């Protein structure tokens, strides 16, 4: 069923009784050309683009729980392409362009809202760094705009410009950045993939890989053995656990990132705003809640919940730039698992096992990358060569010395 305004109108007149489930719930077939492990945003996007852009037939997505139950439903919904390094920025700008056309592409309302993202700066040296970043962004074709404190006072008068410790000196805008309804991204890709014949198999946990003489020929699952020409792992947050079943150790630690939402408020925030000194980012959802987050907790964990010191730290970050946030009451908080890699950048690569592919290490930047990650992973799976915008995301880059370390923190995952 194709969605349209007319459809919504006629369904409204007939009691909305004609809507059907938008994906099937098939049993697994004994064999597929491509098996994608992980029914999150990236896995579903990969399946969608494999079928749509590369014409691959016979694809299955295996999901341990239900689709969209992981980080695609646990993030703060921000999309942006304001990176610095050559290995990263063109990839994220490609993702931004895919976001801009996503709803038309998969005929699903993902509520893509380019309401802008603003990175505040608080010192002269930080302004210089942001000017450099803005130039890098523009070189990749992205938009960037430097705003002075006077500009911001007009546009966002509620910010604490004269904070004694961290006065706001200005900010870097990316007007094309914004937010997207995260669950709808998973559902839209799932629907689009299903329409093109992809089997989305939920409640199907992969328990092992069939690997013989360095070739992966299929997987063992809780719904039986399934053979596959290519097996594509796409389970960021649990990458180490899944890849350990194939005997592969990764340059990844799992950490928890917390997020928070307040009670619903009248519109106060026009876009996304980030603090330049601590780690704090905030936007307002269409329901009115302020959605915000900060740093990861900083220790290895697979528990999808964090601890109170980070809650305090995030709240302090909010109060430092936006004292009015202190009037809002916190409604919910939650945690999601991050693949924190050794340089803060992701992987989209083959492994040394033939037929086994890996996508992961997204740190806490996975959501914005969803369309490009799917497109580039599909490209790699279909053609066995990396997409031109994802050539740097190699698993062996640490051994070769080609790190993509945006922050320059070194091999310390909890600092990225």
């Amino acid at each position, binding site marked *: 069923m194709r969605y349209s305004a007319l459809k919504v109108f006629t369904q409204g007149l007939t009691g909305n009784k004609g809507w059907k489930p938008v994906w099937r719930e098939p049993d697994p077939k004994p064999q597929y050309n491509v098996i994608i492990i992980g029914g999150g945003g990236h896995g579903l996007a990969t399946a969608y683009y494999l079928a749509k852009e590369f014409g691959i037939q016979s694809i299955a997505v295996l999901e341990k729980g239900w689709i969209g139950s992981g980080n695609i439903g646990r993030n703060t919904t921000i999309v942006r392409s304001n990176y610095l390094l050559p290995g990263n920025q063109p990839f994220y700008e490609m993702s931004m362009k895919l976001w801009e056309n996503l709803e038309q592409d998969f005929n699903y309302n993902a509520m893509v809202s380019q309401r802008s993202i603003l990175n505040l700066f608080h010192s002269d040296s930080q302004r210089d760094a942001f000017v450099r970043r803005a130039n890098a962004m523009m070189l990749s074709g992205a938009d960037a705009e430097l705003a002075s404190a006077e500009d911001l006072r007009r546009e966002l008068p509620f910010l604490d410009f004269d904070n004694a410790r961290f006065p706001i000196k200005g900010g870097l805008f990316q007007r094309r950045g914004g937010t997207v309804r995260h669950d709808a991204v998973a559902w839209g890709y799932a629907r689009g993939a299903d329409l093109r014949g992809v089997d989305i198999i939920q409640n199907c946990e992969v328990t092992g890989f069939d690997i013989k003489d360095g070739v992966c020929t299929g997987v063992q699952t809780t719904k039986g053995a399934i053979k596959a020409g290519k097996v594509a792992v796409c389970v960021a947050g649990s990458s*180490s656990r899944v890849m350990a079943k194939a005997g592969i150790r990764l340059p990844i630690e799992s950490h928890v990132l917390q997020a928070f939402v307040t009670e619903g408020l009248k519109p106060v925030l026009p876009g996304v705003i980030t603090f330049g000194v601590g780690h704090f980012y905030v936007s307002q959802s269409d329901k009115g809640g302020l959605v915000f987050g900060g740093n990861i907790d900083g220790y290895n964990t697979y*528990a999808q919940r964090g601890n109170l*010191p980070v809650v305090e730290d995030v709240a302090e970050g909010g109060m430092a730039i936006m004292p009015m946030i202190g009037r809002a009451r916190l409604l919910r908080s939650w945690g999601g698992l991050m693949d924190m890699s050794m340089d803060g950048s992701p992987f989209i690569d083959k492994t040394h096992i033939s037929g086994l592919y890996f996508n992961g290490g997204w740190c806490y930047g996975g959501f914005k990358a969803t369309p490009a990650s799917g497109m580039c992973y599909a490209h790699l799976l279909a053609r066995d060569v990396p997409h031109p915008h994802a050539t740097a995301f190699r698993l062996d880059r640490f051994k070769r010395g080609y790190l993509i370390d945006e922050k320059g923190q070194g091999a310390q995952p909890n600092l990225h």
Partner: protein
Amino acid sequence: MIIDHPLLGPRDAAEFTYLGDATLINRPDPAAPDAADGFYEYLYLRDNPAGEHNELWYHEQGDRAWLVVSRNTLTHEITKVELARDVALRLGRDR
């Protein structure tokens, strides 16, 4: 989380900074013929288990001791805390 410091008793984990997997104590031999591979694995690769995990915590806002904390990464339960020095000596390091 509360870390039961062997010398100071129970302390809030917020007083500590976290380094990572306690295998970082076992620095490879730089004179070995395969030292490059050894250091690559030492520096970059991790087991990253779900469950029992031995890890290095530094008491930055306390006595500046390095501790090896055994903690369950699924429940955050801490089962054992030792001075990293004691662990290193037991592993055959001279300090």
